[in-house]
């Protein structure tokens, strides 16, 4: 494969993965698109040698996480931009309060990331540990704590619905 073919393969295989992971981290689709673009530029301009497809994916996920961190660290994270979903991506109406995605987005980033890698990407704690550099016990702790918080958020939301305006 030449470089362009490699890029085409990577875009086809990982664009959605990177977009979703970035979104789970940043809670902003505009930023998630920027991260996705940046990751591909890095992949395109640097010769990386991967041991196998698992290594490739883990590396790209790690690169994505770190790009998200960089974005949060940089001042331009505060840039003002209209939240505009372009023709590039499809998004459902997930920001309503009945959505589990909405509930996950209420969690702190450190829980969102672990929940995404475990429940969406299907990684085990030991694999998440390798991707994120976080120790295995911490991964377990965050998974358990994240679930507890999520449950609490959903119950609270349900409670508010039950006792909404006009209800006693």
């Amino acid at each position, binding site marked *: 494969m030449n470089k362009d073919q490699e890029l085409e393969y990577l875009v086809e295989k990982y664009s959605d993965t990177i977009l979703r992971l970035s979104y789970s981290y940043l809670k902003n689709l505009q930023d998630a698109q920027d991260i996705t673009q940046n990751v*591909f530029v890095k992949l395109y301009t640097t010769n990386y040698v991967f041991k196998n497809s698992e290594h490739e994916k883990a590396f790209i996920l790690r690169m994505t996480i770190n790009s998200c961190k960089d974005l949060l660290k940089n001042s331009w994270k505060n840039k003002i931009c209209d939240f505009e979903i372009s023709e590039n991506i499809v998004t459902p109406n997930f920001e309503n309060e009945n959505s589990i995605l909405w509930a996950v987005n209420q969690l702190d980033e450190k829980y969102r990331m672990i929940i995404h890698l475990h429940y969406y990407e299907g990684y085990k704690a030991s694999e998440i540990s390798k991707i994120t550099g976080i120790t295995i016990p911490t991964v377990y702790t965050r998974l358990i704590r994240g679930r507890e918080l999520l449950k609490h958020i959903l119950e609270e939301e349900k409670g508010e619905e039950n006792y909404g305006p006009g209800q006693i």
Partner: protein
Amino acid sequence: MDLDKYKKEMDDIHYTKKGKENLFENTKIIAKEKQQSTSEFKKVRSYRKYAIAATLIVASSVTVLATDTLQNIVEIFSPILGGNSAQTEIINEIGRPINSSDTENNITITADAIIGDETTAFIVYTLENSDGTTFELPTGVEVSDLHFSNDLIYGSKIELAEFGGLSQTLSIQENPNDPNSLQIIESLTSSKPLILGQNVTATFSNLSYENNILVNATWEVDYNLDYGDASKTIPVNETFTKDNIIYEIDNVVVSPISFRANYTVHAVPDEKSFSSTEIGNSGEETSSTIFTEDLEIKSPSGEFVDTEFIDNINIAVTKNNGEEIKIKTEGASTGPSTDSDEYTFVTKYLVFDDIVPLDEIASIVVDGIKIDLK
């Protein structure tokens, strides 16, 4: 609580077909812009290094052919080289002529010579009209405007033995030895040792300026990655403690081209960033190749340590004449630290701005520990 629903909702977020096409095209455009701006930046900052590398490599290949020519080159570039005969000898020892070429569309690209060490290599190519006439540029176009359309891929396709970063740059400039031709200088810097002896194909496509193709062709120049690696590994095995963290200097590797210090930190990273490899910082007295990995280090006691800490180790190469080459500390390359629960393996790396004969190096000092090269 149904977390499967999370998966379903996440699945609904995806790129459209058009979105993926845009992503693909935009990546190439942004990368090219980035490459061009970086090249310009590097060109200014690294001019001296490239000029030296080119001159030295050409000198190397020419020494095999004619001492008089070598003398001329040394004389012409003595302001840069310093007229040090010891350098000429070293270049002769570690450089290798290549003399492999490919002609397409009446333009010949020839790989002239290579010089390198364990992890770094410079290759010099000549680009000329195949009939020997002067290669001329359109009016208003400067040599610095030129690039290959595949310059993001760079010339040489190098195989690495194991996972590692490989940074490659191309620079097109006037040929100081022949006004009729141009010179292409390729630099390769790897985070892992380069495998010598491998057959390499360097590919160049469509010599261009801005968005215009000047020569529509693809050249493939085959050569063997071979040179005299003069790298010298000096085992150290010294330990020091800083802010309650133990640092163990494993060894230092020095060559006339670069310097590398390998040390083990008795702490594990909590977060690790594999940023792209970059060459940077040659605007000052020394230049440093940086493998950026954004680390947050956690000590065995569980306390987080500032990322900068790992980089703030003082490393300096001291020459016999007392001159000190300080290694910039903002970059580090880490080894298989993710496979260890206790240690982080770090490499500090520096490409010298000039050829430094090993017998001119007196010592290397790593945070107070003096490693005598004698």
